[in-house]
């Protein structure tokens, strides 16, 4: 049995994302949707694993907007629904979210956003809490693992009470850390879908689900928010620990609560600092805040990433200034805390020691000096593609084709493992020149291709992963075709949403719940819009390069090259070598070869190592994935491959 289905009362070690999933199960969620993205993916994955056992409908949607639309339909039919994404996914979903908040919802619906302060596995550290304020919907932020479960369960109830969607926000250190959680009861009954639409337009329960008349519905939405605020005043998820009249009031939420708690205890400030933890961060529980703001003159606000709480508390304080008196606020806006990146206990402790003039040093002074001594000894290592990664082979051919073409072609990058080619240029052989949001590489390429009249004459290439193709590249691709943008569009198809852990996408024959379904073929879509399509195996360097050169030379239209090769870490491939690789020491001429170490200096698969003693290349058999590509690049044919026995 999945631990997600543990009986009521049992204490289970849950990852934050599992706790969120368990909370949804306890709330009786019927439909769960999402698009993979670190640190959010495990919520849908864990629900997918119990979908059949709990009679849930779970899907990986093509993108976050569609995921929210699918979840909303369940809510309209009276079911409970959850939609899960990472921070920038909320931007994708936001257009529909704006309209959904206007129409209101029926069955409880929760948007879970797992965010990534410090961009540990993102190319942004976007904040989606502002959407709650901008779109006037409630925002909840769990501060430990028990709360991750309990707040999720309560979020469904709140949503049904106010008839609107509720946002639950987690961060990497909540989602990916683990802690003990006491389980509650799982419901035994499942709801039936029942969609009613023939009542009056203003009837939230029985009328058509629509945001008009806009102004009247807008007032209605604001009433809902007030109702949520009233509930927040009494919520047990907002609590205070500390003296009645603290010297300093520390207001915080989410994982920052854990940092703050630890910092206070590290400095022994329990009697001087009061800790107000808010689980409900929008709308603010104003009475609760008024009470605590009145208790002191100094207030520190600890949060990630932007000063969202800080701004809102300050606005609130300004309105009740006469009652609470003049305050001094510390936080991100006065630079007591850094305005970007992740926080930690040390940073909070440093802030506390500065405000309260307490001596604090997290590390001995000699530590920094020791570090300075050690740094030069640490070998420089940059991130690169894994051994056997198809992307290394793809970019090798892209690079070579661009060099051969001679017109300094540019590549517009996109989001996936292949973004490494932009972040660490040498692993993409210095080809990728732009990197933005999912699918935007194709749109940008389409734009570059139309700059010919202004003197831009470089060939334009866009790269895009298979999952990204379905997510957001299709409209841009159709745009390129419609507007006759001369681009070479390359799909780096590694058969799965590899970077986030091989979640299925529409190109695969499996659903989120593990059921067999037909695939939606990328080639078919591209051919249908009129593009010229070729398919190649990126491990076939010669063929791939030739197609690319032919495509770049053929001007005036959209060309699509689909490079198909499974990710080296995919469950199907992992630990199964296609080839056994070996460097023939007789043939490898080492530094006497004119090759100038092409294999270890330029190609740089981590499994290719330069043996300093022998002055020859060797294969690190432990990490070599047996893809066989290096066999094709050695000019001496000294890298030998033999088919592995299966």
């Amino acid at each position: 049995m999945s631990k997600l289905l543990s009986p009521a009362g049992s204490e289970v070690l849950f990852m934050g994302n599992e706790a969120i999933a368990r909370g949804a199960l306890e709330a009786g969620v019927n439909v769960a949707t999402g698009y993979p993205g670190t640190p959010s993916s495990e919520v849908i994955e864990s629900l997918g694993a119990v979908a059949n056992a709990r009679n849930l409908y779970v899907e990986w949607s093509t993108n976050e907007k569609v995921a929210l639309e699918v979840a909303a339909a369940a809510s309209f039919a009276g079911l409970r629904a959850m939609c899960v994404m990472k921070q920038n996914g909320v931007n994708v979903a936001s257009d529909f979210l704006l309209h959904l908040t206007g129409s209101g919802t029926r069955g409880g619906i929760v948007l879970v956003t797992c965010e990534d302060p410090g961009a540990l596995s993102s190319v942004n550290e976007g904040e989606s809490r502002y959407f709650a304020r901008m779109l006037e919907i409630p925002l909840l932020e769990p501060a430990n693992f028990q709360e991750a479960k309990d707040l999720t369960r309560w979020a469904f109830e709140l949503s049904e009470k106010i008839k609107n969607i509720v946002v639950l926000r987690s961060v990497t250190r909540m989602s990916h850390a683990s802690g003990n959680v006491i389980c509650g009861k799982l419901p035994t009954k499942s709801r039936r879908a029942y969609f009613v639409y023939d009542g009056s337009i203003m009837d939230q329960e029985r009328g058509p689900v629509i945001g008009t008349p806009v102004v009247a519905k807008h007032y209605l939405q604001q009433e809902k928010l007030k109702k949520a605020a009233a509930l927040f005043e009494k919520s047990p998820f907002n609590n205070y620990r500390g003296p009645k009249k603290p010297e300093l009031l520390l207001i915080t939420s989410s994982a920052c609560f854990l940092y703050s708690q630890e910092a206070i205890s590290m400095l022994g400030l329990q009697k001087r600092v009061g800790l107000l933890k808010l689980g409900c961060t929008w709308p603010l529980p104003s009475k609760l805040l008024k009470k605590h703001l009145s208790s002191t003159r100094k207030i520190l606000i600890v949060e990630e990433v932007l000063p969202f709480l800080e701004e809102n508390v300050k606005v609130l304080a300004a309105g009740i200034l006469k009652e609470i008196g003049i305050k001094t606020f510390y936080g991100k806006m006065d630079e007591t805390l850094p305005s970007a990146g992740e926080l930690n206990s040390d940073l909070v402790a440093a802030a506390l020691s500065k405000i309260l003039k307490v001596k604090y040093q997290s590390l001995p002074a000699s530590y920094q000096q020791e570090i300075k001594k050690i740094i030069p000894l640490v070998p420089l290592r940059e991130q690169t593609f894994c051994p056997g990664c198809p992307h290394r082979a793809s970019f090798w051919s892209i690079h070579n084709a661009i060099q051969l073409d001679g017109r300094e072609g540019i590549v517009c990058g996109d989001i996936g493992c292949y973004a490494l080619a932009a972040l660490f240029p040498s692993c993409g052989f210095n080809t990728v020149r732009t990197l933005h949001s999912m699918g935007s590489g194709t749109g940008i390429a389409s734009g570059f291709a139309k700059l010919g009249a202004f003197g831009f004459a470089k060939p334009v290439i866009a790269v895009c992963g298979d999952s990204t193709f379905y997510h957001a590249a299709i409209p841009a691709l159709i745009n390129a075709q419609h507007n006759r943008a001369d681009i070479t569009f390359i799909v780096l198809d590694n058969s799965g949403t590899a970077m986030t852990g091989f979640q299925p996408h529409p190109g695969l024959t499996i659903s989120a719940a593990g059921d067999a379904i037909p695939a939606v073929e990328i080639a078919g879509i591209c051919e249908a819009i009129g593009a010229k399509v070729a398919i190649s195996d990126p491990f076939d360097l010669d063929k791939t390069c030739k197609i690319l050169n032919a495509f770049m030379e053929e001007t005036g239209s959209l060309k699509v090259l689909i490079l198909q090769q499974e990710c080296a870490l995919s469950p199907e491939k992992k630990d199964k070598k296609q080839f056994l690789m070996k460097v023939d020491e007789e043939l490898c001429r080492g530094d006497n070869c004119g090759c100038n170490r092409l294999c270890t200096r330029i190609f740089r698969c981590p499994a290719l190592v330069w043996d300093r003693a022998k002055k020859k290349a060797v294969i690190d058999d432990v990490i070599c994935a047996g893809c066989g590509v290096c066999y094709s690049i050695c000019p001496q044919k000294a890298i030998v491959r033999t088919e592995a026995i299966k």
Partner: protein
Amino acid sequence: MVLLRKKQSSQELLKKGVLEAGLCTGCGACVSLCPYQVIYHDRTVQLHNCDLEDGKCRAFCPRTDVDLAHLRDCLFDAPDITPEIGSVKGYYFSRAADYQLREISQHGGTVTALMELALTEGLIDSAIVSSRNQDILQNGVRIKNKTDLRKNTGSKFTVSPTVATFNKIVAEDAKKIGVVATPCQALALAKMKLKPQQDDANNIDKLKLVIGLYCGWALSAEKFSKLLIQNKIDLTAITCMDIPAGKNALELHTGNGIKSIPFADVQNCVREACGYCFDSTAEFADISVGFARFGNNWEEMRGWNQLIIRSERGQQLVDLAVAKGVLEIREAPAESLKELKNAAAEKKKSALKNIIRKSGSAKNLLYLDSKDPMVKRYLGENE
């Protein structure tokens, strides 16, 4: 003060001094030595950066600095050297004895006849000649027998990376190699004979014969194919190209008959590098061969070649060819040699003029050395 600076890599020097400077002849001397330098279409491309400082690529390039006087001393007998056309041991008109060969050749079939003989006599085991691809691009191909040699006769007008093929097969199983080379290619092969590199340097001893071709210019494949497309000529349908005497046009034989392009248009397609070339007769070959027109004697000499014997090795081959009856030779009139020398001198003068225009100073002759007696001689006339 001497500034300590990391030496520039050979590849960088080659890039700045030759490729980007428009000096690259596309001969292929820097190709097939490493994975970095390749030929694509008729352009030399650097695929990845290489930081080696004493690369063969730069050492072999016919457009990097070279001591031509030293090279002449090493390869030829001093009394044979002429300022205009290099070493001359003998100067004749020649043609293949086999009329069938003459039929399929551009002029007299001399080159093919000599290479055939070298192969059959075992003087060489492989001949490298240029071969046209499906369009106007060329490649150096390795030929091991007579029949294949005859498939590749005729002039092509674009460059072939012939020396790249030499670099490739010399590292493989070929033991005795003969090359049909343009002047720049012959110079590259001659530079290899100086053995600038320790490693593999002796490979060049496998080069047993260089038959040079007279050359005035070569076309850029990119520009030329654009011109052909503009003139609605199907590149794949071209069977033969010629610039017939007296006509100011390039004639292309295609499946749909002969198409003619005004020579002025064709001239616009000449590679920039050809303007800086100091050698029109392949001075560093063993034997040089060209067409035999001179004065107003167009018709009489149709079907004959001019032949310059430059080295001892060249002399022996021609003697053998005559003795075996595969080559017919006749004395060339003195005015023909004079005319050839005048034309070659003009080419040298115009090359120097173009070089100075490019470098901006008579003191900087790019790949040539102003102290070289032959250069000095024509430089004086330019000043």
